[in-house]
């Protein structure tokens, strides 16, 4: 490997609380992110994604293990790490009583950009994020999508080599989400490394070059979306058959497909039979030629490729949407 990873996380552990009440939010996570790629941490709420990126963003100290950004240890030199990263958090964190332009200018000031540079970058980013017309309005009046775009713009003011985004499209309507995805793809194409967390399969699938699935504070599997999907196997083809006579039909199909598919690739299905094949598109013509005959009436056909949902199910034993009521309540005394 000639390129050094911009993020190196080594056996990271974060324990909240002490004694019996303690929880291991992050339980020995190790991963690296190559410069210029878009890396996703995918997992359900409470899996440890946010804790991991809070440690990387110098907001939280790890209990054990180390994390480096551009070769700099986040615990030893947080100030140096902060100069190199842009951060956008789960719910676009903005000062409701600042205007869009003021928000960007403050970010520029804190990063010590020269005055002229601040003005130029702010104009450029407001234009890029289609916020020029609301630049002098208070951010409290912005829509959800506008807040996200401004938050992203403020993270980009100092042109950081690394952008860390926590659930960048959470709570956005589909249209704003697609627009933000396009924006992230553009930023990624310009060479900025992006680390994001998500619990949307579609988002991970579309955006990420590589992703790590996190569950219960551990990485259960890591790879490109394609690799992960191929890794769990095969396409499924369901043939709908008129009046299926369970055993008889299954037996008939197996006989006719002998030599083409092994018997155990053919299974009963409520609507007819299902077939497991390496490549559905290629297998279907041959299958249909063999099955065509008077004793079987095929009334329909559908096929499916493995999705990241299936990958998640395979490695964690559950669907990502099975959530638990264990979020922290942040109102009142605690």
């Amino acid at each position, binding site marked *: 490997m000639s390129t050094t990873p911009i993020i190196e996380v080594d056996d990271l552990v974060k324990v909240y609380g002490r004694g019996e009440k303690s929880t291991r939010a992050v339980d020995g996570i190790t991963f690296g992110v190559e410069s210029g790629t878009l890396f996703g941490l995918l997992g359900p709420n409470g899996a440890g994604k946010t804790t991991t990126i809070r440690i990387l963003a110098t907001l939280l100290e790890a209990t054990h293990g180390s994390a480096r950004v551009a070769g700099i240890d986040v615990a030893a030199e947080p100030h140096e790490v902060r100069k190199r990263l842009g951060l956008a958090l789960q719910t676009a964190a*903005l*000062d409701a*009583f600042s205007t869009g332009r003021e928000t960007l200018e403050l*970010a520029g000031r804190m990063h010590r950009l020269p005055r002229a540079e601040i003005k130029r970058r702010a104009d450029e980013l407001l234009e890029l994020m289609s916020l020029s017309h609301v630049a002098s309005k208070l951010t409290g009046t912005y829509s959800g999508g506008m807040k996200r775009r401004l938050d992203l713009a403020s993270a980009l003011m100092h042109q950081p080599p690394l952008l860390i985004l926590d659930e960048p499209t959470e709570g956005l309507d589909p249209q704003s989400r697609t627009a933000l995805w396009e924006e992230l793809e553009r930023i990624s194409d310009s060479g900025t490394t992006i680390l994001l967390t998500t619990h949307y399969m579609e988002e991970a699938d579309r955006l990420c070059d590589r992703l790590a699935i996190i569950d219960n504070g551990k990485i259960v599997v890591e790879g490109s979306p394609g690799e992960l999907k191929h890794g769990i196997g095969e396409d499924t083809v369901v043939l709908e058959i008129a009046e299926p006579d369970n055993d008889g039909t299954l037996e008939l199909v197996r006989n006719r497909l002998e030599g083409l598919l092994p018997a155990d690739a053919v299974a009963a299905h409520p609507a007819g039979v299902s077939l497991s094949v390496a490549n559905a598109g290629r297998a279907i013509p041959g299958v249909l030629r063999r099955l065509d005959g008077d004793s079987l009436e095929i009334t329909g056909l559908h096929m499916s490729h493995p999705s990241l949902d299936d990958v998640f199910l395979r490695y964690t034993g559950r669907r990502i949407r099975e959530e638990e009521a264990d979020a922290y309540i942040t109102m009142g*005394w605690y």
Partner: protein
Amino acid sequence: MSALAYETWYLGRRTTMRFLRVPANWISIIAFPLIQLLVFSQLYQEIIRLPGFASETSYLAYLAPGQVVFAAFLAVAWSGFGLLVEYRTGYMDKLRAMPTRRWSILSGEMVPVFFQAAAMAGIILIVSVLLGATIVTGVPGFLLILVLAGMFGLSLAGVSFIPALLTRSEQATSTFSLLLFPVVFMSTAFVPVELMPDWMQTVNEWNPISKLIEAIRSIMNVGYDWELIGQAVISMAIIGIILQAGTLWAFGRLSR
């Protein structure tokens, strides 16, 4: 140090705009002392016949310094709210993830409190003068009162910041502020110490709010009484050091 000053300047400018852009912030601070000033100066105008008021020309003249301090007190009472809200929304995290000194975030909230308390006190002071109160020491006295009110704001800010940072709850913070109201009511804002029951007289020997009111009263009605002013400054310094230390500790705990 220059980094701290630089960051405090820009962060403080932001918190000041945040304060000014919500009229409810300053209206709610001004309204209460203003009402007390207008209503009580009329309602109790005959009270100065009582012995403790011997040297006073009008109850308005007696009441005004107390309401000036009351305005500064109210400016402080909810001063920790902004930081609390930004901790909750995550904006504070955003600032912390920038190359910003952690203490700049706190001083960007604290330093404006000086100016807010001074400005609020100044408005009540001007209204008092318009109603007929006098400042015998003139413009220098007026400015000195603003500085004292600002110092009072800084020294007492901890009564809002500490509960805000420790409980992280708006309700708890505002309830705690309410508990401090009796300290103001028991001060010499409304009646001289001679008319109070013995135990309250003892309390007032130690009440920094009374010290400040007496100092301002001398500046307005009599002339500079450096002993009273000195006592006010020293008591504010002592309380300020204790509360600021508590605030620094609570903030450090929050942002660790």
